[in-house]
């Protein structure tokens, strides 16, 4: 179970092609802009800066929007474009264990997502909190986002092997399951990657509940995160080993 450097290089060139990267980085800068606007004329009465940074900017915008969306784009494209373009056969007809292919692709998708998300997190956090006590909020979210990126990418990578509609499935999951359903039923937070990420963030910083109160406690979040990541990667191995070429003309 290793990483193959050729696959990593190939995937990097594939994923980080001009348009996609620029779009993702532009997208990542949206929270930064919002933070800038907040600094300039924000409503500091309703939320104090710490609370706003943690709950609104970092939790809702970065972890809730930028993270899953970026992971979706990179995670589904890592293998998805290969299947779509027909170059998957090129990779799969080599004496490389399928697990190596999955891990190499996951590494690149994860790395790309992490870069974009960190570009989003740090400026947003520091801008919004400039002059205020840090209490490790930004760093906590950054670390949590790194984990969250791994879980999301692993899950979406698996989805892109298992189905050709991975993108739409992922969108439904992020926006409907994690966005709407989690507010309706209490138990759903156990199945939401966003909640794992927020729980990890909460564990890593020591702030009062009024500032940031994740739905999942830290230890639970960490355990579930590891579990889901492991299962997703294992499923991805399995799906790729059993992958059959589709009906071509």
């Amino acid at each position, binding site marked *: 179970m290793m990483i193959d450097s050729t696959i990593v290089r190939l995937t990097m*060139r594939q994923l980080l092609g001009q348009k996609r990267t620029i779009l993702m980085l532009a997208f990542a800068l949206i929270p930064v802009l919002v933070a800038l606007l907040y600094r300039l004329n924000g409503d500091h009465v309703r939320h104090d800066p710490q609370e706003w940074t943690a709950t609104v900017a970092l939790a809702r915008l970065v972890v809730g929007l930028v993270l899953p969306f970026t992971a979706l784009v990179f995670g589904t494209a890592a293998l998805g474009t290969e299947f779509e*373009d*027909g170059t998957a056969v090129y990779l799969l007809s080599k004496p490389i*264990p399928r697990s190596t292919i999955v891990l190499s692709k996951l590494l690149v998708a994860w790395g790309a997502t992490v870069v974009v998300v960190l570009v989003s997190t740090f400026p947003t956090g520091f801008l919004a909190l400039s002059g205020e006590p840090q209490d490790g909020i930004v760093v906590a979210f950054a670390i949590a986002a790194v984990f969250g990126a791994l879980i999301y990418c692993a899950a979406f990578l698996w989805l892109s092997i298992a189905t050709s509609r991975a993108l739409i499935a992922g969108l439904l999951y992020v926006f409907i399951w994690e966005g709407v359903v989690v507010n309706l039923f209490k138990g759903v937070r156990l199945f939401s990657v966003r909640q794992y990420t927020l729980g990890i963030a909460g564990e890593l910083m020591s702030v009062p509940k009024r500032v940031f109160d994740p739905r999942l406690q830290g230890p639970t979040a960490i355990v579930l995160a590891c579990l889901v990541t492991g299962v997703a990667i294992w499923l991805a191995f399995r799906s790729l080993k059993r992958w059959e070429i589709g009906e071509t003309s």
Partner: protein
Amino acid sequence: MTEPIAPPIATEPTAPAAIEFDHVSRWYGNIVAVNDISFSLNAGITGLLGPNGAGKSTMLHMLAGFLQPSSGNVRVLGQPAWGNPEMYRRVGLVPERESVYPFLTGYEFVLDSARLHHLANAEEATMKAIRMVELEDAMGRASGGYSKGMKQRIKIAAALVHEPDVLLLDEPFNGADPRQRLHLMDLLREMAANGRTIVFSSHILEEVERLAEDVLVIVSGRLAASGDFREIRKLMTDRPHTFVVRASDNRKLAADLVSDPSVYGVELQGNDLQVRTSEFAAFTRAVAGVARRADVSIFEIRPTDESLESVFSYLVKR
């Protein structure tokens, strides 16, 4: 009507066959794409021939390890084809879809293939493969801008770079101009002569006729015939053979030939004499004697429907 039986293809009794299909079937729900096909192949060029939708691609995909047989076994070089990435060390595949990574140059495409095969001397092998397909001029250009034929050739180079023992090609001559086609045929013949097993699929009869030593004719998922197509023709005893003869006196020869028991029809067509016979061997023995007794010189005699086309159309209509 006698059932044509495919002559068994001789295999070495000791080593496993290079390619082996053992009662393989593949179905998709109610549709049977490949229906209980068995054969084995060794070194040489074999053409997989059949109408579109007959199951050729399915069979090649199963050989390449990208489709699991619903029943039966597919073995390549003694190992199962499905779920066995190690097999690719000695197997090369040229898929049908003209998919390359558009941002890679031709050279990089083949080089990455060499690296993915963990070749020790990747650059050397890459240059060798590129020279084999005559793409040295274009190898520095991004492969996204290649013509269809060039993409085909670079895919072949990538499949050959690790010098596989078995080479599988899916419709390799699609989009190749006549010169490229001849060059590729020469290349494949050379590789076959060096002991490699080559299987290619095509629905174009001329290509298969010219290149393949053996054919596997697939019709509606079943193996309709296998082997040398001339031998297959001879086995079709329920179909009369037709010969075209040109002699010094066609009409006289015709009259005498009709009296021979192996002949059952003659026809004068322009300068030629068409003879229909139901007994190939008997006729070939008899015709010289008939001509000598009739004091007629034969200038030319040839069978007319030994082409793969006639064999094929017969098999398809069955």
